[in-house]
């Protein structure tokens, strides 16, 4: 039939290959179906205008306007889906579809957005920049998840660690600001404290899981529930009546010199809050660390085959402790973003599932930092569109829009888009001899 069908070996590891081929075909058909849906949607929407504008230099300056119709955007989405479907069906299991997904998702999301706006103009720069901002904590949570799962520890507790990070950042930053009045110092100390607190929580998780062999899921649940309990308790008992302890100076956007002056791209990528830049750096840094250093190789070995790693003299447990600690630092950073850079203060249960959505981004990105970053971007986009639509008053119930990230998370975790294999030994305790 196709080249891929021939490529399947008739014997031996045939089962896995057949399964991969079947998955590939399902994927190909799914992309084709998306294309057909896009064509169907296009037929009825050529009359609706779509108008997107992009700031060229900066907010409020000159803008480039893209004038088209919703139907045209759907046609573009249909063509994109058709190309990827064809590639997938022709090349079968050997097709590296993950990067190509962008060709399907990006025009689809744009067309969907135009369809929902139904004629109202939107500023695309703000939507994309907003997606980046909203994706940052999710991407950071995903990075933390990658670090710990690559080492062989499940990390259900990201949510709780982010919550503790958000809480600590707000309180410490407020206190430092009250005593010194220095905004920069307050922010830095607040973020550092958030990272330390979440890092220590991570150590507690690792200690329960490694030393006491508590099931890693239960240990994570303990931390998630405990974090909600203790932060709500202190919020209600102390912060509610002493709001000055919960009024940190907020983190403002920062234009990167030179880069921010790039036309069109500058306002999107380089005029954001510093957290976004830290996110970029972390993604690149962790990709390098995990795939290009000895430390990364040992980390991956501990997660895939700890017994083999132990045999060649790698201290698996030490690696796991350290990985969970670093994961804690990153999730604390992500948490501090929520209280310092978005809400301006700590609110009860403000993480609202972002830690779990981060785990979904990790899975969607196949445990790779760059993949996880783009997956987080999709969730960020969903959030950004949701706030845009509610500002414009588009007639979709806010509750339904708000549930989109959660539904997408379930779909992703269920591997509907494409099953991926995680680290082989994640979640299993390791007995070091």
């Amino acid at each position, binding site marked *: 039939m196709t080249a891929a069908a021939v490529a399947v070996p008739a014997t031996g590891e045939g089962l896995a290959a057949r399964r991969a081929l079947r998955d590939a075909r399902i994927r190909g058909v799914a992309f084709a179906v998306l294309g057909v849906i896009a064509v169907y949607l296009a037929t009825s929407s050529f009359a609706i205008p779509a108008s997107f504008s992009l700031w060229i230099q900066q907010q409020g300056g000159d803008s480039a306007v893209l004038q088209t119709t919703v139907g045209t955007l759907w046609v573009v989405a249909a063509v994109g889906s058709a190309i990827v479907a064809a590639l997938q069906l022709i090349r079968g299991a050997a097709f590296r579809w993950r990067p190509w997904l962008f060709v399907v998702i990006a025009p689809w999301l744009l067309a969907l957005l135009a369809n929902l706006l139904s004629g109202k103009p939107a500023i695309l720069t703000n939507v994309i920049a907003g997606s980046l901002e909203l994706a940052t904590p999710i991407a950071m949570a995903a990075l933390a998840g990658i670090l710990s799962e690559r080492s062989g520890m499940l990390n259900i507790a990201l949510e709780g660690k982010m919550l503790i990070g958000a809480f600590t950042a707000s309180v410490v930053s407020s206190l430092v600001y009250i005593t010194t009045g220095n905004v920069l110092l307050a922010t830095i100390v607040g973020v550092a404290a958030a990272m330390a607190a979440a890092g220590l929580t991570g150590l507690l998780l690792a200690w*329960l899981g490694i030393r006491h062999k508590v099931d890693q*899921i239960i240990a994570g*649940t303990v931390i998630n529930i405990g974090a909600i309990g203790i932060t709500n*308790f202190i919020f209600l008992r102390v912060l509610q009546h002493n709001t000055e302890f919960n009024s940190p100076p907020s983190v403002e956007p920062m234009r990167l010199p030179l880069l921010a002056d790039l036309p069109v791209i500058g306002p999107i990528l380089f005029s954001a809050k510093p957290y976004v830049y830290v996110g970029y750096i972390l993604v690149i840094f962790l990709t390098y660390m995990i795939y290009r250093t000895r430390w990364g190789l040992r980390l991956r070995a501990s997660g895939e085959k700890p017994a083999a790693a132990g045999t060649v003299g790698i201290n698996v447990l030490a690696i796991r402790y350290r990985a969970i600690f670093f994961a804690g630092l990153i999730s604390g950073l992500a948490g501090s973003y929520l209280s310092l850079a978005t809400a301006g203060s700590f609110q009860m249960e403000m993480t609202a599932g972002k830690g779990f959505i981060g785990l979904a981004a990790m899975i969607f990105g196949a445990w790779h930092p760059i993949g996880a970053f783009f997956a987080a971007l999709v969730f960020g986009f969903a959030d950004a569109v949701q706030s845009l639509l509610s500002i414009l008053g588009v007639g979709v119930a806010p*509750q339904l829009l708000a549930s989109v990230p959660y539904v997408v998370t379930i779909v992703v975790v269920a591997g509907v888009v494409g099953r991926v294999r995680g680290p082989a030994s994640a979640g299993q305790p390791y007995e070091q001899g």
Partner: protein
Amino acid sequence: MNRLKAFLRRAAVPALSVVTALLVGAIVIVLTDFEALAKIGSDPARALFWVETVNGKTVISGALGGVVNAYGAMLSGAFGDPGRIITALQTGKERDIATAIRPLTETLVATMPLIFTGLAVAISFRAGMFNIGGGGQLMIGALGATITAIMLAGQVPSPVILIAALTVATLAGGFWGFIPGFLKARTGAHEVITTIMLNYIAALVVFFALRSPTLRAAGSTSPVSKNLSPIVDVPNIINLPNIRLDYGFVVALLMAVAVSWLLFRTTKGFELRASGFNLTAARYAGMSAGGSMMLAMALSGALAGMGGGFMVIGTVGQLTLDLSGSIGFTAIALALLAGLRPSGVVMAALLFGALTNGGKLMGVQSGIPFDLLVFIMALVIMFVAAPGLIRSIWRVKVAKPAPEIAAVTPTGAPTV
């Protein structure tokens, strides 16, 4: 005698876990009492513990005094005042008796949904499924019951509505639990993530449903449903004014018996436990592991949903956004505390029902937020799951944890 010994050995870890968690809770109360602690340099006695008589009333203050006040309020909120109950019973005045025994019956009222959700957690954990979506399943069940009751109001007799509402609640909750079971069995999606996501979705679905004028209380700006008690009400056990305890509690106890029978006296129950204990072995023995997962999750959700149904048409009387509150978390803590035994679930639910009910009075009387209990429950789970901690804190020899707790997640389970 030996059975008693075995029971005491088994009960040592759970009992010490609760005690330790409450002690840690006390430390948290002391450490967050900044107003009292600020005086520690100038007046250590007043800062820590101070008893004085103001207007003929004994007033305890100070940071440690705050603990006494808080836990004292929790106790009297949960059990009432024994002396007052006896005097009320002697006088025989209905209103006095009702006021005196109300704390006790309210504890049972708080216990009722905890038994349902605790059994739900126990049944899923036994099958190796870590269902932490009890809260969401309860909400969906409650929503189903609410919609049924309002739709059928005035068209059929009230007992029919009662049964219909409970059936819909059970089915709706079961469906909400079946989704993660199905996803786990078919795609390997980890139930912890899917159940948590379904909790958020359930809250949004209920919020969305409560926008509809059919369900929402007339003239209300906040998302609460109409009062259901004029339409349908679960009969009360004791007919006294202001006493909400109804036959939902009895059904909860019957469910504990039913779950116990199912798990330990039937083939299906054996299969459930076998796939939770060792998935590979169960598969090898020819059992359908995927079937067990789906069944366990559906039953689990059905129990939680039934609990939600009994709340809205019985004790609470209307659907609100915070109906499930901390019940989902509490259920996990108490099911683990109970060693996943149905009889233990009932006892642990009584304990946590008392804590929950007492916690409300604690919030009102001593200003200690209810969320302290959420933190304490997390600690209880931690101590029960890590008996080594209890052993080293209390320097006692304790029984090894039941194997079924050690093996909550099946070996070779797909990664998250």
